[in-house]
């Protein structure tokens, strides 16, 4: 028989609700590290998940291949038209690169914020309820992945590592609604590089918001936005996206630009985690120290 509201059950239910609220408030706080039982569960589930995501990636790979086979003719036509241009650009890049190394040797500069050690990883799961933009990858702290490292695909930046366990890590995508998620960025292609912060995501336009740009500086649509490396963790020069619109922010003091992300956030498979060569600064990649953050 099933008595929903007998006395014993009512007390149990109340205790359960209290426990629930306590657990939620405990886990909603910003936690720096994952507790041991959680790590155990995460690694265990992660191992099981890898068994399932392997074949799934294989199947999607086949569909992708068929899809690109169907587009071959058009792509080939387009690529041919770009090929001649490419040879010129290639020569120029080689020339500039060697000049850059020479100049660096001349002034004795060894380290560069652009340098990073790539850690290759595979996405094993995406949070299926999709309220939070998180994916889980198959490399963890035992592979040298640390919190706040930049994660990208070949197309551009997609997010940063927020939690690590020995064998998995959780990546929060750049398209999150989290107000504390910031990336220092700069706009290139103008007379001078313009610095700003990526803060927030417009879910209707599906575009990132670049804020805190000086109102006197002129930026235009179509200019590219890359990570600036000034936040202290991300390497310099990871492509983020392209400006689609420039407006004034809600206080009228600084400019706000909408940025179309270069990377595609759906159907992720292989990602690269950027382990910066230059010493990293503690904290998040927002250019603020802990003292600045306390209001």
């Amino acid at each position, binding site marked *: 028989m*099933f008595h*929903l509201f007998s006395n014993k059950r009512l007390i149990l239910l109340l205790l*359960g609700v209290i*426990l*629930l*609220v306590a*657990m*939620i408030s*405990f*886990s*909603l706080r910003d936690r720096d590290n994952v507790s041991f039982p*959680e790590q155990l*569960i*995460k690694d265990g*589930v*992660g191992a*099981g*998940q890898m*068994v*399932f*995501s392997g074949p*799934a990636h294989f199947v*999607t790979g086949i569909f992708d291949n068929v899809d690109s086979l169907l587009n071959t003719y058009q792509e080939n036509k387009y690529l041919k038209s770009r090929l001649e241009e490419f040879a010129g650009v290639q020569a120029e890049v080689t020339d500039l690169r060697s000049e850059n190394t020479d100049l660096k040797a001349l002034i004795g500069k060894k380290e560069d914020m652009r340098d990073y050690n790539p850690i290759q990883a595979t*996405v*094993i*799961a*995406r*949070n*299926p*309820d*999709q*309220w*939070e933009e*998180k994916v*889980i990858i198959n490399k963890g702290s035992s592979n040298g992945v640390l919190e706040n490292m930049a994660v990208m695909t070949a197309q551009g930046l997609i997010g940063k590592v927020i*939690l690590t366990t020995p064998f998995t890590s*959780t990546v929060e995508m750049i398209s999150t*609604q*989290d107000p504390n998620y910031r990336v220092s960025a700069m706009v290139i292609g103008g007379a001078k590089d313009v610095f700003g912060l990526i803060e927030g995501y417009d*879910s*209707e336009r*599906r575009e990132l918001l670049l804020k805190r740009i000086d109102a006197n500086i002129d930026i235009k649509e179509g200019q590219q936005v890359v990570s600036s490396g000034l936040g202290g963790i991300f390497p310099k020069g990871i492509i983020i996206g392209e400006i689609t619109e420039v407006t004034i922010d809600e206080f009228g003091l600084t400019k706000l630009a909408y940025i179309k992300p270069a990377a595609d956030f*759906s*159907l*992720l498979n292989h990602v690269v985690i950027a382990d910066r060569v230059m010493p990293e600064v503690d904290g998040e990649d927002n250019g603020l120290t802990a003292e600045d953050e306390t209001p």
Partner: protein
Amino acid sequence: MMRYLILGIGLVLFFMEPVFGLFSPLKLGGEYYYIVPRFLIMFLIFVSVYFDTKHAMYYGLFFGLLYDVFFIDIIGLYSFLYPAICVVAGYTVKTVHRNLFVATLLTLVLTALFEFVLYQFFSLIALTDVPFVAFMTTRLGPTMIANSLFLFILGWAFKSVIVGRLIEREKNPNAY
């Protein structure tokens, strides 16, 4: 061996969900549609309806906890909602005639309810700013269509497996 069949199916569905989640969001005609696979909770509701509510609750608690820790880092959300949905399912089915059509309908209604409660929760803690109408058209609608397809295809299989286990249990009740 057969004893762990229900748990085994639950585990497979649990691991299948994120794999199918990788396909979402779906872009159709410039609009993005989110499809959330809810295989596990639908299976648990079936267990609750055809097997018994207590077992469904335990499985719900177990899988909910795994889900909370692995995916969303908010412990207590799914591990509360999964068992709660199973209780509601078990309670409702006592008052109506139990057949596959009713079970399917009940499952779909409860899955929609589940999705709605989650939306309310995430709006409350400000993790999402999706307006209600957009939630209905871009999330709940496509999610329910996809999940009902899944249920229409596999609902009878769920039922036959669970009823098979039930008969086996009634044959030798000492196993429990």
